[in-house]
């Protein structure tokens, strides 16, 4: 991959360098209950000690295996569920220590685009009203002005004004996804957790939404945690990327650095599996062997060792140190 290293960065520098979100050693465990008394018999370690910082105006990408804890990070980061350990600071304030009313005030600044748009929409509320709901709840716009704002936002998200009075089930999958995006953007937030926001969109509308997100980033210093499994989208939009595996950050680097010089064997496998839109090309994929381990009982040493093509004895025994190898490139692998 290194032959592509010489490339001009077309994204703007990505932020002011001033931290907006600081995540430190974040853990979120879900209890597993069992037996007749439904006692706690173990934990699903969905997020197991993750740290990263997102600067103001930056777009931070989070990628990784399905079930590795990305959505859980997104939700815990916004305190949509409580944490098990660690901390999240937003604008210097410890989110999980705020009172209810302080949190409510903070909520307007932080929005989320949910991964599953259908289950986050009330089937009996017209989508126009659903999009404007939070504006009214927080008293940001009067009832009579809200419709105009909603329609304006719907339009920039590629929906039309005739969609206002329709109900969620009358929309296609991709249209519903745009409803979720409109709902977040209308609040004029400072920070958005976008959980697979373009996965159901056809490429042209996907391009339109990504251009929109990147415009908002440069015009309004909007900051994103962008969760996606589509690495070509991540490469395009994000300034920095973190790669997760089984609740742990395995690698993190500025986007160009990560794509031109992936160091972790899991990242390399991910990159080799990206489907290319060219039917004449047949590429060699790094196929990961073995079953995906359980987050309730993760492997010893390096969590990836059971599937890693490079694993040796040390990997089974010692947890590799997560370290900076230069160029703000962090990696946790004994051989990187």
């Amino acid at each position: 991959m290194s032959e592509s290293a010489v490339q001009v960065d077309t994204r703007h520098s990505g932020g002011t360098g001033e931290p907006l979100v600081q995540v430190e050693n974040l853990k979120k465990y879900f209890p597993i209950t069992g037996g007749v008394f439904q006692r706690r018999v173990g934990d699903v370690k969905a997020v197991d000690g993750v740290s990263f910082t997102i600067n103001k105006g930056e777009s931070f990408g989070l990628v990784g295996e399905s079930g590795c804890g990305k959505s859980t990070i997104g939700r815990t980061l916004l305190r949509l569920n409580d944490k098990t350990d660690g901390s999240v600071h937003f604008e210097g304030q410890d989110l999980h220590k705020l009172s209810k009313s302080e949190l409510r005030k903070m909520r307007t600044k932080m929005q989320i685009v949910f991964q599953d748009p259908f289950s986050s929409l009330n089937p009996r509320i017209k989508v126009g009203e659903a999009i404007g709901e939070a504006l009214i709840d927080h008293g940001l716009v009067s009832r009579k002005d809200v419709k105009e704002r909603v329609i304006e936002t719907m339009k920039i998200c590629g929906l039309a004004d005739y969609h206002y009075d329709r109900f969620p089930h009358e929309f296609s999958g991709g249209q519903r996804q745009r409803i979720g995006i409109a709902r977040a953007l209308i609040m004029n937030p400072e920070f958005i957790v976008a959980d697979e926001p373009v996965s159901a969109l056809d490429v042209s509308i996907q391009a339109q939404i990504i251009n929109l997100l990147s415009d908002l980033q440069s015009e309004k210093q909007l900051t994103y945690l962008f969760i996606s499994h589509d690495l070509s989208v991540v490469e395009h939009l994000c300034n920095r990327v973190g790669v997760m595996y089984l609740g742990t950050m395995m690698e993190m680097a500025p986007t160009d650095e990560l794509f031109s010089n992936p160091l972790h064997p899991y990242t390399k496998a991910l990159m080799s599996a990206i489907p290319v839109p060219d039917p004449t090309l047949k590429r060699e994929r790094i196929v990961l062997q073995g079953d995906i381990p359980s987050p309730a009982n993760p492997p010893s040493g390096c969590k990836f060792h059971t599937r890693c093509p490079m694993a040796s004895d040390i990997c089974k025994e010692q947890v590799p140190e997560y370290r900076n190898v230069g160029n703000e490139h962090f990696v946790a692998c004994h051989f990187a």
Partner: protein
Amino acid sequence: MAKDLVEFRNLETHFKTSAGTVKAVNDVSFSIREGETLCVVGESGCGKSVTAMSLMQLIESPPGKIVGGEIMFEGKDLLKLSKKEMSRLRGNEIAMIFQEPMSSLNPVFTIGKQITEPLLYHLTMTQKEAKARAIELITMVGIPRPEKIFDSYPHELSGGMRQRIMIAIALSCNPKLLIADEPTTALDVTIQAQILDLMRDIKTKMNTAIMMITHDLGVVAEMADFVVVMYAGKVIEEAPVLELFREPRHPYTQGLLKAKPIINQRQERLYSIPGQVPNPVDLGENCHFHDRCEFCMEICKVKAPPLRAHIDGHKTACWLYEEEGKAQ
């Protein structure tokens, strides 16, 4: 060439809404051959899922209704079958992976119950056999701790895990036709690759035909034998996959192929087709793409272009390739 397994003939599916009739599927015809993978691509909202749901006869009615056409499956018109005959086919000979896994899994039943149900019903297995097979299926789609997952509820699973449960259910009865509506959108690329391999596998082993709806052109390039492109309820182009990528002919298809971000070829801005899809309630008798098309001619605004093969096996609905258009 293999026999046709499915043939959509002039299918029309409409929805009655307060604003008027939405012609979600508007005179759609195409065939899926035995053992073939056919990918359907097209603008969000163009009728891909409704086409698939029409075949499954799972269109919610009202407001939806199949108002015209035939859907032939192994020579019989599915639309003429009784409810009972249809439900015997569904989940057995014809299986579908739905676009939104959360809304198609029942939140109050365990995963195990939902996987074993078709096994008990269609394959008349015993409880014990069904459970063993279910565990095997959960493992096959790459989910760890299958015994625990068997007893879990849908909300306890991640998005990608739910999607794979849907896939496991769909594969459980060895269908002749598998309809997969965006089957890998919630999956990371390594698991996506694994699922695509799995689908290729059952295709070669069981000669299963696959109708795959996806917006990921990378997946299309890897999986499809044949591609159908839809726009505003109509098929506007269809061709074998190599042909379509080499020579997309409809301006909409050309735009789609241009809009895909490609790894290591970053552009300042992504190309996106200008304009909006037309309101499906008042579609006229014209090319529905005309107000977004850079080649639009007078005839495009007043007359619908026919879907016609100008090259063997490659059909296009665009006036640019018709005598009437060339004259302009």
